[in-house]
Structures are given as structure tokens and as C-alpha cells.
């Protein structure tokens, strides 16, 4: 009897330790879920959102991003922060991506209503059966470049021959391969190097020509100290091969919707409203890049201030000025993307897709309606006289 009693006390002590371990450290969890981004809205908009929510006027819509919070998605953050979505009757929840999150898969499985992803990445998913549609091509230009130090003398794709060429792989390599192959450089002619998320291998000289997004890795180099001068690197130190100029650019960030649901008039109307408010958000980012960068930072992006502003400015350049109105899918650009996806082989001899994508892969129907409504409201969706701002990068992007 006493044995059981003693045991009981001991087990009680153990349980207490367990409880301390389990609860003691989770104070910071807070109440709500962290799956969705808590976008910092202005006080006025926060009240309006609350009121509309309470009145039951809002339809909840989830948007899956391709990556974590950063200015690449500033337009959607601005749409929430400035109440553009609320004006359209939408309560938009932004869901961040992660290393292993594939936005088009999340969308196809019905967990979210819209997703942001690159066209070539989605074309492969569509061929494998994902029923999703590009309803607005937000980025008109590609941000992927191949950069090298001036001394390496790599100014054009043909110069890549014999060089150590960096690439992240995982679907980021196609513009590079297409550009090389258009210049007669085959994969055997280069030494393909797997590139990490930072630019250290490039700065150390292990990679001669590194892949760099204009809005991110290019800035990472310019935020680093050149040991020869003791100052930051400058654009003069670098050669940039821009795939837009070479003619092998592929379409990047687009808004994707579920194809099946597009036969439902409610979802169609919601799609128009979502695109409309999103474009309005991007117009805000164009006109107020500093404020937009601040909104993104206040909504949980950990990028440094100058890096965030640089990214905002570079993203603006991908959208503005817009040739046909933001979001319109240009047939020629689409065809170029599909052509590269069909005909460019990677190091294993595979292509992204083996047959042309179905008609349902894109439609301009909804974005045209959205643009017409925006025009009526007097929103400039072309940005013909758009001028980028000057951003000074700080060491480490601080």
C-alpha cells in the first residue's frame, strides 16, 4: 500500500515537471493563429474592416503567397492595409509560403482561393493535372538575371561557355538554359554550380556568373563590402545578363484561380473584385513606395529597411509602366514562356512540359473587367509616366 502511495507522489512530481516544460515556454504563442499574415492597416481602415466584418458584409478570401512576407507581394499587403479589398467586399487573408510549400498545389487542393506563382512553375503542375488558371499577370517583366564581376568578361549568354555558372535549380533555371541554348552554349559547355540562398559563393569567386533576382540577390551583392576598396560593391563592378533583353524571359508572378470554380458566377465576381483591388494595391505601391515598404515591414517581414525599399522599387519596375494595363496576359509573352517550357532541356534532358497547356491555363476575361472598373474610378493602370525612385542600399541591407 505504502509502495503505491510513494509511487503516486513520484509520478505526480514527474507530471509536474512535464507540465512546466510543456506550458512554461509557450507564453509567446498569443491567441490567434500565425498561419495568416497580420497586415498592419491604418487605424481608419482597421475600424472599417472591423465594422464590415461585424456587419457580415465581407467574404473571406485566402491568398497563398509563393514565399514569406516581403515587398515582392507589396501590392496585396497594400490592398489589405488601404482597405481596397474591404471596399470590394472581400476580407483577404494572406497566407505565407515556405521552403516546401508549393502555392499551386495548395490552391489546387482547395485550401485557398487564389495563389501567387510563376507561370513556368505552374505549367508543369497543370500538365500533371492541377486545374488552375492564370487570371492576372501582375509582373510583366522577368526579374531573373545572371550577374558576374566585370573582370570575368561575361556580358552575353555566349560568354558563359567554360564558366562556373550558378543556378538555384528547382524551376529557376529555365530562362538561363534557354538563353544559353539560344546563343549556342550547351549544358556540357558550362560547369553548373548549385547556388545557395546567399551570394557568398559568388563573392568568394566559386561562381563566375550567379543567378540573381534584381530585387533580392543583386541587392545582396551591392550590400556587401568590396575588400579591395573597403566600400560597398557598386553596379559598375558587375555585368548583368538580363533575360528580358536576351529574349528568353518567362512570365513570373501571376494571380492563379481554380479553373472549376470559374464557372460559378459568385466566384467569377469575386475574382474580378480581387484582381481589381490587387491592382489598386499595386498602383498604391507605385505611387508610395516608401509607405508600401513600411507596410510590408510592419506586417512581419524581417528584411532590412534599405533592402525592403530596394525590393519595392525593383518590383515596381517589373510592373510599371504597363504595356496593356496591369494584369493583362500578353499573348506573345505567354507563347514565349510556353515555347521555352516545351523546348528547353535541363541537365537530365527533361522539359517543363511535353505538350501545349490547355486553353484554360489563362484568361483575360476577369482582368479586363477589373481594368474597366478601375478606369471608371480614375485609377491609372498603365503608369505611362512611372519613374523609379533612387534607393541607397546600406551595408547588410539594414
Amino acid at each position, binding site marked *: 500500500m505504502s509502495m503505491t502511495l510513494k509511487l503516486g507522489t513520484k509520478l505526480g512530481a514527474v507530471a509536474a515537471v512535464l507540465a512546466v516544460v510543456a506550458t512554461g*515556454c509557450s*507564453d509567446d504563442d498569443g491567441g490567434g493563429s500565425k498561419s495568416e499574415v497580420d497586415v498592419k492597416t491604418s487605424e481608419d481602415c482597421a475600424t472599417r474592416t472591423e465594422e464590415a466584418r461585424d456587419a457580415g458584409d465581407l467574404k473571406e478570401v485566402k491568398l497563398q503567397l509563393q*514565399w514569406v512576407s516581403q515587398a515582392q507581394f507589396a501590392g496585396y499587403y497594400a490592398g489589405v492595409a488601404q482597405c481596397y479589398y474591404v471596399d470590394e467586399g472581400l476580407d483577404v487573408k494572406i497566407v505565407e509560403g515556405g521552403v516546401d510549400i508549393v502555392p499551386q498545389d495548395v490552391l489546387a487542393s482547395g485550401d485557398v482561393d487564389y495563389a501567387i506563382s510563376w507561370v513556368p512553375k505552374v505549367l508543369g503542375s497543370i500538365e500533371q493535372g492541377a486545374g488552375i488558371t492564370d487570371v492576372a499577370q501582375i509582373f510583366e517583366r522577368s526579374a531573373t538575371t545572371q550577374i558576374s564581376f566585370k573582370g570575368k568578361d561575361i556580358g552575353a549568354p555566349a560568354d558563359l561557355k567554360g564558366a562556373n555558372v550558378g543556378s538555384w535549380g528547382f524551376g529557376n533555371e529555365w530562362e538561363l538554359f534557354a538563353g544559353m541554348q539560344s546563343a549556342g552554349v550547351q549544358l556540357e559547355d558550362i560547369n553548373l554550380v548549385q547556388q545557395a540562398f546567399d551570394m557568398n559563393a559568388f563573392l568568394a569567386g566559386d561562381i563566375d556568373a550567379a543567378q540573381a533576382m534584381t530585387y533580392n540577390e543583386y541587392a545582396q551583392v551591392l550590400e556587401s563590402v568590396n575588400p579591395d576598396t573597403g566600400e560597398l560593391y557598386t553596379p559598375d563592378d558587375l555585368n548583368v545578363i538580363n533575360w528580358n533583353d536576351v529574349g528568353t524571359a518567362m512570365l513570373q508572378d501571376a494571380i492563379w484561380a481554380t479553373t472549376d470554380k470559374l464557372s460559378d458566377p459568385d466566384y467569377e465576381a469575386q475574382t474580378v473584385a480581387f484582381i481589381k483591388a490587387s491592382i489598386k494595391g499595386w498602383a498604391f505601391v507605385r505611387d508610395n513606395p516608401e509607405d508600401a515598404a513600411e507596410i510590408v515591414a510592419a506586417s512581419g517581414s524581417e528584411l532590412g529597411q534599405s533592402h525592403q525599399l530596394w525590393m519595392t522599387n525593383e518590383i515596381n519596375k517589373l510592373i510599371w509602366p504597363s504595356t496593356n494595363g496591369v494584369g493583362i496576359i500578353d499573348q506573345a509573352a505567354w507563347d514565349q514562356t510556353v515555347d521555352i517550357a516545351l523546348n528547353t532541356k535541363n541537365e537530365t534532358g527533361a522539359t517543363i512540359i511535353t505538350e501545349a497547356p490547355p486553353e484554360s491555363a489563362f484568361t483575360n476575361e476577369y482582368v479586363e473587367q477589373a481594368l474597366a472598373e478601375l478606369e471608371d474610378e480614375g485609377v491609372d493602370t498603365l503608369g505611362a509616366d512611372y519613374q523609379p525612385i533612387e534607393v541607397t542600399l546600406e551595408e547588410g541591407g539594414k
Partner: protein
Amino acid sequence: MAQIWDRFQAAILGLLGVATVVVTWDLYKAFGPAEGVLVGDTRVLPRTTERAMPHSWDMLQRLGEPVSALPDAPDAVRAVWDASMFSLGLAARGWVIGVVIGLLLALAMSGFRIVESALLPWVILSQTVPLIAIAPLVRRWGSELQIGGHVWSSEDSVAVIAAYLAFFPVAVGALRGLKSPDKTHLELMRAYGIGWWRTLVTLRLPSSVPYLLPALRLAAASAVIGAVVAEVSIGLKGGLGRMVIDYAVAASGDPAKPWAPIFGAIGIGLVAAGAVGLLGLALRPFRLTGVSR
């Protein structure tokens, strides 16, 4: 007296161990070749540049500086502290779930041979599935779940993934422990006509403690790794895993910064192991049978 001296000695040795790592780091940085050591084309020792190996004091100093130039940016150490507590909380949740499941599995397997034959291969197979494959699945399946009023969140997904890694050592360790009593002791119990439950509580569980403690410690380490990696995988905000991704952007321009979350991870690893150590103290009286100390 001797015991206090032992403790003191252990603490000194522990500090010496840390100091050795730091000194080796900085000595190599000071005297190692700038381009590192290459065997053929393979670099076996790293470069010693500021970018590849920041000075230990630079990394410490960086912890005291604000994370960014934003006016309300916290000091790095504060940010790392918050992220560490967040990840530790998730790891602890995962650990508790993993330990409970591991113990239940071990109980079932030790009780019935057929269950052991049926389950053990699956338990082992479960650990060969790569984390990057299950992370998105857990998130997707979880989002279909709704338990009572509780809506599944990404935190739950991370805790489940941490538990997925943590249950394995517990299941295997506890199974061995539960089967460890001498046959003579078990037969004595049977001879006295003592039932399954009391045999479990008075004999099997106490004698499993020496096997269980290392398993629990291993589970704690696995839960921490699982939580951090799962955060990276599904991009959950607030913890160390996400901080690793966020700070990687500064690897070239601010090379000391990406080390900050690594120190946080070391810290919570130590705390987790320490907490299990405390558990070991509580369980010390049970280290009686079977295995010699």
C-alpha cells in the same frame, strides 16, 4: 563534499569545452589560409574570410545591435530570445505528444507480441520518410481538421512534425525498457498472482527508467530539430527556423547576423536537454533494477 567538488569540476570542464571551440575558431581564422584547405577540388577546411567565418566577438556584438534600421527594430538578442521561446514552446508540445504516443506504442508492443511484430517495422519505417515530404502533407491534412472549436493552425502542424520525430526514440527505448526485467522477477510476480497492471507499475515501469531517460533526451533533441526544420519547411512565422531563412539574406553583407538564430537553436537545445535532466532527477529513485549504474 566530494559531490560538490564533482559538480564544480563538471561545470569547469563544460566551460572549458565551450572555450576550446571558441579559441579553435578564432585561432584557425587568424592563422588558417584565406582560401581554406583544399584536397584536390574539395575544400576540407573553410575559408577564413570575414564572410565565411566572422570573429566570435563580432557574432556576440551583433547580438547586441538592432536587427534592422527600422525605428522600432528590437536588438538581435531580443528577437532571438522571442523566437527561441516560440520554437521551444512548439518543441515542448511536440515532445509531450511524441512521448505520450511513444509510451503508448511501447506499452502495446510489450504487451502483445503480435502487436510488436506488426508495429515495430512501421515505427522504424516512419523515420525514413524525409521531413520535407511530410511537412506539406501535415499542413494540408491538418487544414481539413477541426477539433471542437479549435481551428488547426500552422503551429499545430509544426508541433505534430516535432512529435513525429520525437516519438521514435521513446517507442524503441521504452519497449526495450519494459522488456528488461529479469525473467525470474516476472515469474515471481506471476507466482504471486499479480496482475498485468501492478506488474507494469511495480516492475516493468521502474526497470524501464534507465532505458527511458536517454530516449527522452534524444526525443527532446529530435523535437527541437523537428520544430525548427518544420518551421523552415512550412514557413511558420515567429520561430528560429523562419529566422534562419529571413536572416540568410544578410549572409553576404552582414555575415555575423545569420549566426544569431543558430545561437538561439543551441540555447533551446541545451534547455530542452536540461529539462529532461531534471526529469531524470525526479526519476532517480527508480534506477534500481536490472542495469547497473
